[in-house]
């Protein structure tokens, strides 16, 4: 209850910080927030051109296949990697005013989420152009991205707490993110790898979020209960671990800044 009250008190701060990030990100760019739509589109054009020539995967609607995977991946990778530095780089503030410290990673995740919403516009555009059928299943798109958001918040809490103590995690994480991208079927189909590797790949939470998103948007199917339970389990166990780690370490942050 007490925690909830503090959160409400700082809700406006959270909104303000997100607002600031948006302003600072698009300051002095002519197209402004439109970049959040254009960027995934241009990226997709490059990847689709390159990969459809190098690898001869038989993927129907490769553009959309790639884009649906990439927006989920980009969201998780942006949310976690910006959160990571968020506590540490707010040292000036944390040392001077009392603010609940989870505000910082939470804010970065929500900011990345706003960006994700804009890149969904890009997904819709590509859907229109490539003539994919819009069906009611597409309306379920918030489900996988909210799973991914919960997962990202959990992971961000852990990463941002650890980064205060060990700055070099930032460098390792950059490499990890690249590996994670290739370990998830984003630019290649799952069937391209051997069955044995597929079993290992199924331990990757990102695979489930990406697949869920593709199912509802691209393949017009709704994942079953089992799939939902797996997603829920990954998201909430990450969130719980995140909260516990952060809570255990947060009082020490200020001493290491």
């Amino acid at each position, binding site marked *: 209850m007490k925690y909830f009250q503090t959160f409400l*008190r700082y809700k*406006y701060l959270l909104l303000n910080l997100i607002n600031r990030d948006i302003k600072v990100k698009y300051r002095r760019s002519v197209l402004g927030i439109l970049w959040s739509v254009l960027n995934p589109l241009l990226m997709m054009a490059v990847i689709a051109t390159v990969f459809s020539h190098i690898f001869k995967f038989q993927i129907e609607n490769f553009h959309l296949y790639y884009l649906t995977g990439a927006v989920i991946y980009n969201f998780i990778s942006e949310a976690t990697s910006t959160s990571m530095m968020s506590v540490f780089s707010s040292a000036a503030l944390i040392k001077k*005013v009392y603010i609940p410290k989870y505000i910082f990673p939470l804010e970065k995740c929500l900011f990345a989420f706003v960006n994700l919403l804009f890149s969904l516009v890009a997904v819709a555009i590509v859907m229109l152009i490539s003539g994919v059928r819009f069906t009611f299943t597409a309306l379920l798109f918030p489900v996988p991205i909210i799973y991914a958001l919960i997962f990202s918040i959990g992971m961000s809490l852990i990463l941002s707490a650890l980064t205060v103590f060990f*700055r070099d995690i930032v460098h390792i994480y950059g490499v990890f993110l690249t590996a994670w991208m290739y370990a998830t079927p984003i630019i290649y189909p799952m069937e391209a790898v051997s069955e044995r590797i597929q079993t290992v790949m199924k331990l990757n939470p990102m695979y489930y979020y990406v697949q869920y998103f593709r199912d509802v948007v691209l393949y017009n199917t709704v994942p079953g209960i089992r799939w939902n339970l797996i997603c829920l389990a990954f998201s909430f166990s990450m969130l719980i671990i995140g909260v516990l780690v952060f809570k255990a370490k947060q009082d020490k942050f200020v*001493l290491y800044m």
Partner: protein
Amino acid sequence: MSNAVEISGVSMRFNMAKEKVDSIKEYLIKFFTHKLFFDEFMALNDINLTIEAGEVFGLIGLNGCGKSTLLKIISGIYKPSTGSVKVTGTIAPLIELGAGFDMDLTARENIYLNGSVLGYSKEYIDNKFDEIVDFTELHQFIDVPMKNFSSGMVARVGFAIATVTKPDILIVDEILSVGDFLFQEKCEKRISDLMSGGTTVIIVSHSIDQIKRLCDRVAWIEKGKIKMIGETEEVCNLYTQTSN
């Protein structure tokens, strides 16, 4: 009279690492070679202090004696290593004005940002916006990015935001030394307005004159311990005599 702040048996211990270990490699090497020792440093040692509601309380002492650490413990930034702090009411910290300003944003945007850092709601800032701007006297610069402000101008905005509310406890750390003398007078006036409205004020200052002018009671801190608590005049006189 009720107590605004009750500090009992508070100690603050810092690990004073000779070299800062902030990478995993260093940590592991030091861990396995058993060199992971820190020099401990007691910034505060068994502090007991009660500040009554409505009182203007001064903290004096030489640099590094623990004054700022004590303020940070009162405002909840540090958790004390031992002991407990009980604070009744809302705190508006003035510890270094303008912490939390984003210099890329304009003064208007920063008033909202900084206000929310202090926990104000949007409606509250909307209502008080004109009052804040009037206090800063910076009307024509309100839509200018704050990186173009002088430090005195930044301090004006910071002070105006922090004191627009009527906090139960106001913490003032060496801030009255910025700004021109007119603004300093204005700040002092605002502080005395707050005081007459029943706000408890805790002031850290190296200006003994200022302390004498404003405070009811003073604590003299030396090397993390309270050397003396008492009436302003008495403590200040002894402090200046011994320090010279």
